[in-house]
């Protein structure tokens, strides 16, 4: 039936070309509708406690995405006038920057930074900005107001920081960074050093590094093409698999645009998977085409006849297994739509539809195109024999009847499992960048001089207006802050309690023993009223809500790895259990908490993805070959690939985080195809000539697997050149590993297992046939 179908395709090839052209143009037009979601948190389930708190944090406390700019003199001079002037100009410039949350702008020259001073009969509120030209007075005010130490001024009083919060920008963090960089850059000169950090800066830099993909992806595609050219020694070999892969990609992007799906940041590397799978099928067909063409020419057919017949034979013989492999993989990926998380659904649909598109193209457009193209030259010595590929295949053929494959894979898998057991589940935005990159260096400068460039927020809800003024709540806040400050890595904590303590001290003649939280609700209320008389209604918005029902404790941290953040959260929960009234509800949030949530959810779900796809592949392959053993065989290279990926993570101390778990989930999409092609070809060759079944299988389908694995691995190896950006280098390493491990596992282990166990599904049927 497939043979007839391909013949019909060749006859109607003009229509196929026209239809392909139209579909591609249509898809391209819909690609522009594809909405790209930049904010990773939007993709997370909003029910996650760290994510659910985001709306409270943003709407109640105005906490958005922080940017920190720190200015220090090259000299050792504290309170340097030039530095203060620059801080003032940067503050003024940022005040009118697009997207800034003005009430959060904090620096020595912002209106809301006020020193509270007390005397026997008086209470004075002095905005720091009014004494910028009086270094002695500034020193005095900072000494009296520990609240601002290490937040806007460094311990040695040389470095001054400007902290600003920004609304998320639809164009991403890099867009915010680019808008503010002119304000900052004009203050750079030989007298000062200026460092920039914070959530906006780090994520903005990561976006800029990610944008290297625009250059690296074409390089990867060119390298893939070159390896395929070397393998096939023909321009068809170079272009056709890439054409299938790229057309499939355009179609699926168009389909997603038309259906109103959005593409998120976690799916930017999914095209690699589609490219690898689509090229895999294309190479299998193309490889078979050349085999058939050579065979037909040897039998005396004319080039045109041989070309047509080879096209029909290649698709007819390999096509049904390609359809089966494609459908199994697509079913596996489409089954991910049952997941709650949008990005996983998108990943499933994106990959599933991409694979189906590749199948359609390989069954229609590619046979039509190959039948229309000029027949290949023949005899083509270079195509028939070339060293490296044949050498590898010959080694595997020699290996297969021995115990060596089993010993090798058992040992290797054992080593990988040992490595996998040491994998750290850890997400850190900073860790995406190498320690020598500008962003990391500047982050370290600010981190060392201030209380931390990242913040975790602990939000309290007392359930009723004025609840935060309660002495028991304030005492709980105080205990929590002091407890958290003992954790190494926590720089400082700031809350409404700090303001109230300072006011209490100032109102009591600056007595040291009066630096305590107010002991009555009324006194706290009156201090807050007093503070409101000397500022703006929004001055305390970061710490307390409008009706004094909720409070926010800022926990400045110097580290952002998810296990550390979770440790701080756990410690906070312990203290809260003991010190906070039981009617106070506590939530945690902020960029670092969201990143920890993201890691927890994404890693867990990606591991579940792997299990689910593996299960679907096992069942579907079992049904295809009507054998559980076959199901297990197909599943095997896929499992080994995943184990090896985790082993690499463990041995190389690469954390299991969002990008690395995404790559591991992609790896399961590759191994199954190889196994199906090898088993089906082996079955075909067994029926033809059992004595040469192994060598012919490996020389045909096996070599095609090798071509694809090598080309994709080399292509994406180019990402290893993305110096400074570890996420790209992890991608390069893990994709290369996944491609080689899945190919070698399929090539060496499956034939060895088939020969050793001689499963009934293969040998009985082949005997029958």
């Amino acid at each position, binding site marked *: 039936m497939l043979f007839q179908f391909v013949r019909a395709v060749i006859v109607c090839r003009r229509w196929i070309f026209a239809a392909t052209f139209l579909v591609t143009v249509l898809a391209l037009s819909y690609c522009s509708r594809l909405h790209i979601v930049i904010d990773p948190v939007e993709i997370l389930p909003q029910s996650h406690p760290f994510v659910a708190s985001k709306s409270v944090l943003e*709407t*109640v406390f105005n906490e958005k995405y922080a940017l920190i700019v720190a200015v220090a003199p090259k000299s050792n001079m504290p309170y340097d006038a030039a530095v203060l002037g620059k801080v003032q100009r940067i503050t*003024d410039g940022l*005040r*009118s920057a697009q997207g800034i949350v*003005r*009430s959060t702008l904090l620096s020595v020259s912002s*209106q809301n930074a006020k020193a509270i001073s007390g005397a026997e*009969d*008086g*209470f*004075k*509120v*002095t*905005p720091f900005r*009014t004494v910028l030209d009086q270094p002695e007075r500034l020193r005095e005010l900072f000494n009296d107001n520990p609240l601002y130490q290490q937040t806007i001024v460094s311990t040695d009083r040389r470095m001054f920081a400007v902290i600003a919060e920004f609304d998320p920008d639809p164009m991403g963090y890099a867009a915010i960074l680019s808008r503010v960089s002119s304000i900052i850059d004009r203050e750079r000169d030989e007298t000062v050093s200026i460092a920039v950090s914070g959530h906006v800066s780090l994520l903005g830099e990561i976006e800029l590094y990610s944008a290297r993909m625009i250059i690296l992806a074409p390089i990867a595609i060119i390298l893939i093409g070159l390896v395929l050219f070397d393998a096939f020694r023909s321009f068809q070999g170079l272009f056709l698999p890439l054409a299938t892969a790229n057309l499939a990609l355009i179609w699926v992007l168009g389909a997603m645009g038309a259906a109103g799906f959005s593409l998120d940041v976690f799916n930017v590397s999914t095209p690699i998977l589609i490219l690898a799978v689509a090229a895999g099928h294309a190479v299998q067909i193309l490889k078979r085409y050349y085999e058939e063409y050579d065979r037909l020419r040897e039998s005396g057919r004319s080039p045109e006849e041989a070309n047509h017949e080879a096209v029909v034979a290649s698709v007819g013989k390999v096509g049904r297994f390609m359809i089966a492999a494609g459908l199994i993989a697509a079913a596996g990926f489409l089954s991910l739509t049952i997941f709650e998380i949008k990005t996983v659904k998108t990943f499933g649909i994106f990959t599933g539809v991409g694979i189906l598109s590749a199948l359609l193209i390989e069954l229609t457009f590619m046979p039509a195109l190959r039948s229309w193209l000029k027949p290949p030259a023949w005899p083509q010595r270079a195509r028939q024999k070339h060293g490296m590929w044949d050498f590898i295949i010959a080694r595997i053929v020699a290996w297969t009847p021995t115990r060596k494959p089993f010993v090798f894979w058992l040992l290797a898998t054992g080593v990988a499992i040992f490595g996998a057991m040491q994998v750290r589940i850890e997400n850190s935005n900073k860790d995406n960048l190498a320690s020598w990159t500008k962003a990391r260096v500047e982050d370290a400068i600010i981190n060392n001089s201030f209380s931390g460039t990242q913040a975790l927020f602990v939000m309290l809800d007392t359930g009723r207006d*004025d609840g935060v*003024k309660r002495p028991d709540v304030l005492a709980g806040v105080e205990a929590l802050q002091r407890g958290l400050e003992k954790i190494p890595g926590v720089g400082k904590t700031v809350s409404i309690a700090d303001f109230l303590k300072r006011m209490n001290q100032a*109102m009591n003649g600056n007595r040291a023993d009066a630096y305590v939280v*107010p002991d*009555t*609700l*009324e*006194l*706290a*209320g*009156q*201090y807050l*009223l*007093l503070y*409101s*008389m*000397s*500022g*703006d*209604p*929004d001055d305390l918005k970061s710490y307390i*809500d*409008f*009706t004094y029902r909720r409070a926010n404790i800022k926990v400045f941290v110097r580290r952002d790895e998810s296990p550390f953040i979770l440790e701080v959260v756990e410690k906070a929960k312990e203290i809260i259990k003991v010190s906070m009234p039981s009617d106070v509800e506590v939530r945690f949030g902020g960029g670092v908490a969201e990143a920890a949530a993201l890691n927890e959810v994404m890693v867990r779900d990606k591991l579940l993805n792997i299990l689910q796809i593996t299960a679907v592949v096992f069942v579907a392959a079992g049904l295809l070959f009507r054998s559980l053993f076959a199901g297990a065989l197909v599943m095997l290279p896929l499992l080994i690939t995943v184990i090896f990926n985790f082993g690499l993570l463990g041995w190389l101390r690469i954390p299991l985080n969002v990008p690395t778990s995404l790559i591991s989930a992609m790896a399961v999409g590759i191994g199954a195809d190889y196994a199906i092609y090898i088993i089906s070809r082996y079955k075909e060759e067994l029926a033809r000539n059992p004595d040469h079944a192994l060598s012919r299988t490996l020389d045909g389908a096996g070599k095609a697997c090798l071509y694809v694995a090598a080309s994709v691995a080399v292509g994406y190896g180019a990402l290893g050149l993305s110096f400074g950006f570890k996420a790209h280098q992890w991608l390069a390493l893990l994709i290369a590993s996944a491609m080689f491990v899945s190919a070698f596992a399929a090539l060496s282990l499956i034939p060895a297992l088939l020969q050793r166990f001689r499963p009934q599904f293969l040998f009985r049927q082949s005997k029958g046939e």
Partner: protein
Amino acid sequence: MRIGVFPWTVAAFRVAGLIVAGFVFDAAAANAMTAHEIMVCSDGASKVGDAKSELTMTLTEAAGGQRVRKMQMMTKLQSDGIDNKRIIRFLSPADIKGTVSLLIEKTGGDDDMWIYLSALKKVRRLVADNKRDSFVGSDMTFGDIIGHKPTDWTHVLLREDVFDGNQVWVIESVPKDNQVKSQTGYAKRLTFVDRRSCIALKSDYWDETGALLKTIRASDIVSVDSVAKKWQFMHIDAVNQQSGHGTVIHFDLYQANQGISDDVFTPRSLEKDR
């Protein structure tokens, strides 16, 4: 034919003539007023010898949360006829009840302010750069309440207009120097001054970066001293255009010229009068 004229009719016509002449004169004088004179008129429009009032202040945040405060306020004009003494006693909510503040305005200098916290039972002098600070946590600054000194600003009469059915002058004011700009926090003001009372019916304020910051509207204007031609708004609302905060102050009671003693406006009295 001779028409008999009663003496009272003549008198009535004379009075009417004077009234009409007065209106014509007033109108002519008003038409002749410069932007600066209008703002001086506006600055003094509500300044009575003394006044006692009770007011309800409702603060609203963008998300809809509200805080309601009741206060009693007493003011007394100082001997220079420009500056006020102002005492504010908080009546509710419960936690701030009994808190009293005393403000002695000083044109050309920092105002003096004292605060009595009932929970602490202490009077403290509060020193702050208060012209641009919030008036008791509202969206108005002390400067907005006290009034911005007309001589600190350059005023331009943009047009005459009708606002809420009232004839108004529309005056644009910009600070004379950066110090005024920094002290008030405003780069520009646009004031709709009522031609009848000189009360600012609407004022728009632009912040130091040039962005529209807030709008204050006064309504329910009543005459509180017909002799001295003093007027008072009974309702005022301010909306911060950037944060979405809003403040509404409603005067539940307003009595002018009650002969309030100077002794009321001393730091000592804050404690006594609790």
